[in-house]
């Protein structure tokens, strides 16, 4: 790698999949080093700065397990200028990538424990590396449970992967309002969690999704007896450099791009709510 921290490596888009179509469209991209070499290594929860030259850069969670070396996966919702440009890419196109940025989930501290993953909407992507790593190392963990909800059945991402996950872990899918043919839970994610009564003993809960969902998920986990130290989440803020220099993503004294995005609720609840 170059010692110029702002110079991205070139990466070729090897795979594109429509996860969700329509107004809240999400596409999944897999990218590999354009020169046939390696991209950087990463840990679960870290992010990368992706570029489309001429459009700009955007910080995106890495959605593939660190165990996968051949490519890095990103699931991107069409929201802003750069994410929209991503949705116009075709397989074979070359983008820029630099990273990895931020801290990671302390997965090694969690071996031998029950894991509860609670995701909503696009918030499944940042915790997906952790889910798939835990599943790949299934014997290291006790019960693994995945709660995941979308607004409607058409908003459920990683649908096929989630179905396959049922072979080794409990998966509970939910949608906000009842739909014909839907067999999962109907209602908001925090309520879907309560419906299954997760046990706090020897457990860790990891949640990511819209801020309002995270807020009520944490409230409910506290009600179930989960201590703040047992609850982890990942937050996002606007970023430009990824290196604690451009000055915008701080929550209190810490830049999310360096000290985040992964926080235990015990830490996060004492920080100013500037995220």
């Amino acid at each position, binding site marked *: 790698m170059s010692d110029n921290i*702002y110079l991205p490596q070139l990466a070729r888009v090897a795979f594109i999949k429509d996860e969700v179509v329509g107004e809240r469209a999400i596409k999944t991209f897999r990218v590999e080093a354009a020169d046939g070499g390696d991209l950087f290594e990463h840990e679960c929860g870290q992010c990368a700065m992706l570029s489309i*030259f001429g459009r*700009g850069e955007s910080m995106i969670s890495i959605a593939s397990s660190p165990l996968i070396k051949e490519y890095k996966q990103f699931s991107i919702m069409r929201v802003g200028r750069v994410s929209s440009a991503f949705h116009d890419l075709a397989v074979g196109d070359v983008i820029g990538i630099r990273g990895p940025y931020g801290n990671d989930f302390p997965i090694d501290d969690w071996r031998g424990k029950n894991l509860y993953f609670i995701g909503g909407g696009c918030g499944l992507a940042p915790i997906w590396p952790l889910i798939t790593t835990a599943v790949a190392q299934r014997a290291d963990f006790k019960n693994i449970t995945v709660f995941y909800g979308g607004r409607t059945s058409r908003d459920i991402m990683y649908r096929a992967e989630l179905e396959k996950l049922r072979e080794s872990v409990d998966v509970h899918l939910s949608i906000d309002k009842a739909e014909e043919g839907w067999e999962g839970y109907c209602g908001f994610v925090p309520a879907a969690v309560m419906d299954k009564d997760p046990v706090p003993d020897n457990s860790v809960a990891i949640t990511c999704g819209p801020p309002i969902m995270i807020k009520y998920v944490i409230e409910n986990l506290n009600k179930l007896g989960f201590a703040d130290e047992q609850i982890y989440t990942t937050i996002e803020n606007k970023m430009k450099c990824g290196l604690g220099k451009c000055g915008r993503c701080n929550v209190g004294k810490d830049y999310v791009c360096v000290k985040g995005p992964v926080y235990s609720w015990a830490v996060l609840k004492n920080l100013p709510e*500037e995220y």
Partner: protein
Amino acid sequence: MEKILDKKRIDDWIAALTDWEVLAPALQDGIWTYKPVSGAARLDHPNTRQSPKELTFPQREIFFSFEQIKGEPPKLTQILPKETRHVVFGVRSCDGKGVPRMDKVFTDHVEDTYYTTRRKNVAYVGLACNKPPSSTCFCLSVGGSPVSTDGLDVQMTDLGDRYFVKAITETGKALMKAAGSLLAEAAAADQKQVKQVHADAVAYPQRKINDPDGAPAKLKASFNSPLWDEMARACIGCGICTFLCPTCHCFDINDEVQSKAPLKGQRVRTWDNCQFPDFTMHSSGHNPRENTGARLRQRVNHKFQYFHENFGMHQCTGCGRCVSECPVGIDIVAVVNKVTENVG
């Protein structure tokens, strides 16, 4: 190394610095600005409109250019700063103090090549303050002094018809050696006079931050104070406070496109500003610092709490530019004092 320079010979010293591009304050259209020296250098400025920050952190700089023919991978060409050596004369102590603070930001965690390349090629020749401070100066409140040598390579002190010239760093010694016989040994009387000039400079009354050491904890306790909104009500969000600040370092990175097919453009860093709503606005429209109160708090807390928590020093040098140039009279000294006055 402590020497004496006849004031009339300052231009000869500058002329002797042949390996360096020399800048000094120049009065242009009523504004003191650092300019390449041509002719006689004037060192009778109160302070310049902008600090010399731009020499290490330019307002606009190109990181790299990109070029792409359709169907082919993009070609990136990094554009690193030129290794031109600059020496800046007439730097006031407050602006000198800005230098180590910028160094912290751009070298902590990982090094910013663009900054460090420029930084290693810049030397600062300070000029101690010897007159009563302006009504907006408050360097003494933030661990500084009108005669501080922090961040400087050489410090000059005006002794009437001559300058007392003191090397602070090895680079400073080299600059002084280049002067050769222009610099005479300082006599005991010169030493005595410098001490007096410095003591007088420090003794002039300045406005005060009442409890600078207690500010980090007190600001932390005041995060939810209603005063932030109240004190920011007049703010028009122009951002002059941070653009003129010798320690503000926030920046934006954007792609500028010169041609779409074939694609040709540049990735550019420009100064950015925590007083702008766009600075923190997510693409979803959510904004963690959505009003002027939250943005004033960010500016003040960054300088007097967050930076202090991270690096053990205030990120403010007391230069007073944000106070004197604010179009609506927002005054960082008054804000810090007001917010912290009744806190434990």
